[in-house]
């Protein structure tokens, strides 16, 4: 789950990480009030969208008067950035920057731990820095039972800074950012850039946080920050029903048991010249009720032309799956062609049961996908 910059910064502030003052606006006119409330000559108007690349898209502008703030607000509100419409902006104090750093905590698969990533090359795309000058990226794995005591925070701090004034500011920022990460079950907390101002203060000028979906059940305050898009809402609803659903813009609806098999199915659709309308993992079993719910989800898709059901019969045998599918489709009203590919235990019995039904039955994934592409 992602949250906006302003939300992440509010969390930062609660955890004692210094940020600029910020005022949230959803109406362009309010930018003038915000400008005057801040009482600074220069402010920054920043689009709040749950995607990156705001700067390049013109979503971040400097304003030197209330009029200018409003005019930028007009331009930015309603703007589209990578399919996301900007509905919120923040007006925030501008600061004079003398140096920029990149700081994040993130879950690392390889070390199976939270790692701290730091770089003196802040403000840029960190992955580009990592690719071109990996020696400028510092990574430290954090022991979950030790955390970041003062001595470790100092060790990390001295990697980026020399002056004790910066060390003393940076140590609590690191410790608080880690505490925030752990306490909120984050999967990423990122400050990019952390800056030194002309007054020698360290401030988080941008903030990004994402959270572990598996832990949201114990993070009600974080869950309250969730602002799902329509698609995310559909995906979240699907998750509640035990599916994993991702909306895509092709024409071939997929219903597969297992995420890996679902991805492999989509790959083959592409390979054979089709376009999947979605990713849908209906999970281990495939009882009729689940199939009915999955189909009603698929049928909402505007572009849908054909449905491909790809099931591996494992613990649940293919003959049982076939019975379930037949039962489910007694209740599903649709003319859309449905291709079924059944493999696994008792596959022949399963396929025999489906013979003569509304389904087009395929034996191999290749056949099934070809049939689906041809049926569009």
């Amino acid at each position, binding site marked *: 789950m992602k949250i906006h910059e302003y939300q992440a910064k509010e969390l930062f502030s609660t955890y004692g990480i210094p940020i600029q003052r910020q005022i949230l606006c959803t109406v362009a006119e309010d930018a003038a009030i915000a400008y005057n409330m801040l009482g600074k000559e220069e402010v920054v108007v920043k689009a709040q969208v749950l995607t990156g690349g705001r700067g390049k898209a013109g979503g971040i502008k400097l304003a030197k008067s209330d009029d200018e703030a409003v005019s930028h607000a007009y331009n930015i509100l309603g703007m589209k950035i990578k399919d996301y419409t900007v509905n919120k902006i923040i007006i925030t104090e501008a600061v004079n920057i003398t140096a920029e750093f990149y700081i994040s905590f993130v879950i690392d698969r390889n070390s199976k731990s*939270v790692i701290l990533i730091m770089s003196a090359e802040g403000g840029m795309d960190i*992955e580009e820095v990592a690719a071109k000058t990996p020696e400028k990226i510092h990574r430290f794995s954090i022991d979950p039972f030790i955390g970041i005591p003062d001595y470790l925070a100092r060790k990390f701090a001295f990697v980026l800074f020399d002056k004790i004034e910066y060390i003393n500011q940076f140590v609590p920022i690191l410790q608080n950012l880690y505490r925030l990460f752990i306490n909120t079950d984050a999967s990423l907390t990122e400050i990019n850039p952390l800056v030194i101002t002309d007054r020698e203060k360290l401030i988080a000028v941008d903030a990004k946080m994402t959270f572990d979906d598996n*832990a949201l059940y114990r993070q009600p305050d974080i869950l309250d920050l969730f602002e799902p898009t329509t698609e995310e809402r559909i995906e979240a609803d699907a998750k509640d029903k035990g599916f994993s659903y991702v909306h895509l813009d092709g024409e071939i609806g997929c219903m597969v048991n297992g995420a*890996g098999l679902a*991805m492999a199915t*989509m790959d083959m659709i592409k*390979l054979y010249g089709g376009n999947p309308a979605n990713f849908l993992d209906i999970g281990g079993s495939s009882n009729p009720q689940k199939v009915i719910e999955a189909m009603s989800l698929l049928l909402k898709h505007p572009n849908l032309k054909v449905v491909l059901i790809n099931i591996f019969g494992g613990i649940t045998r293919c003959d049982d799956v076939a019975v379930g599918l037949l039962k489910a489709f007694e209740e599903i009203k649709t003319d859309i062609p449905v291709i079924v590919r059944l*493999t696994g*235990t008792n596959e022949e019995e399963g396929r025999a049961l489906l013979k003569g039904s509304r389904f087009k039955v395929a034996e191999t*994934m290749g056949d099934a996908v070809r049939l689906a592409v041809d049926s569009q």
Partner: protein
Amino acid sequence: MSILIDKSTRLLVQGITGRDGRFHTEKMKEYGTNIVGGTSPGKGGTDVLGIPVFDTMYDAVNQTDADTSIIFVPAKFAADAIMEAADAGIKLIICISEGIPTLDVIKAHRFAQERGAMLIGPNCPGLVSPGKSLAGILPAQIFKEGNIGVISRSGTLTYEVVYHLTANGMGQSSAIGMGGDPVTGLYFRELLEMLQNDPATEGIVMIGEIGGNAEEQAAAYIKNHVTKPVVGFIAGQFAPPGKQMGHAGAIISGSSGTAADKIAAMEAAGIKVAKEPSDIPSLLKNMMK
């Protein structure tokens, strides 16, 4: 032979009285797995299918001399179950439960490591050494004893692949579903090393996914250390960037972790990468000639 589990494995089922625990205990028992006990706090002294139930893993290990455990408890309690198993002296812990908060997994994994225990999973189907022992939820009937080691990040895709192998007369020494979470226990590297050292394994199938760089690391390892033929498969070649595809692990982040990168790295290491799961048996047969 095989890796990790065999006839000598003494298995405990954590959460044996739950719906899934009981169901798969029955399946594993039918397969011939040596299940020596199970746990369910407060139900110590009872039994499930004739298998003794204990209140704690400490009691269970003390009384049964178990060395391996499989976890079926709900996500909220699963990390705690891993730590209990490790603290009680279990040396191989297979965690089937899915949906465990990642920070809990990190703690539990680190704890297990310090206690000298290996972890498989979480969010995995478990593993099987066909004809010897099954510790997981994999469909027993599709496996056949043989000389192919299968390691995979996926569940049903693994079954699909194994099904084709078995159908083509290629049995398996051991097949392991490693799990699809951001943080999981034993992974390609460690399992490749075990399979390379297992005399019963003559060919290896590795099934990867987009996201992370484990396949690239595995390829580098194979290049330098694995002499047995390896066939690979990568799911998610056409997954749109940034979309999460069921497995939290399958997020493409930036330029690395794409299927193309992985396939290139694998091919550079001498691994044949299949386009479709059904191609795997013939590719492997050719390499093993």
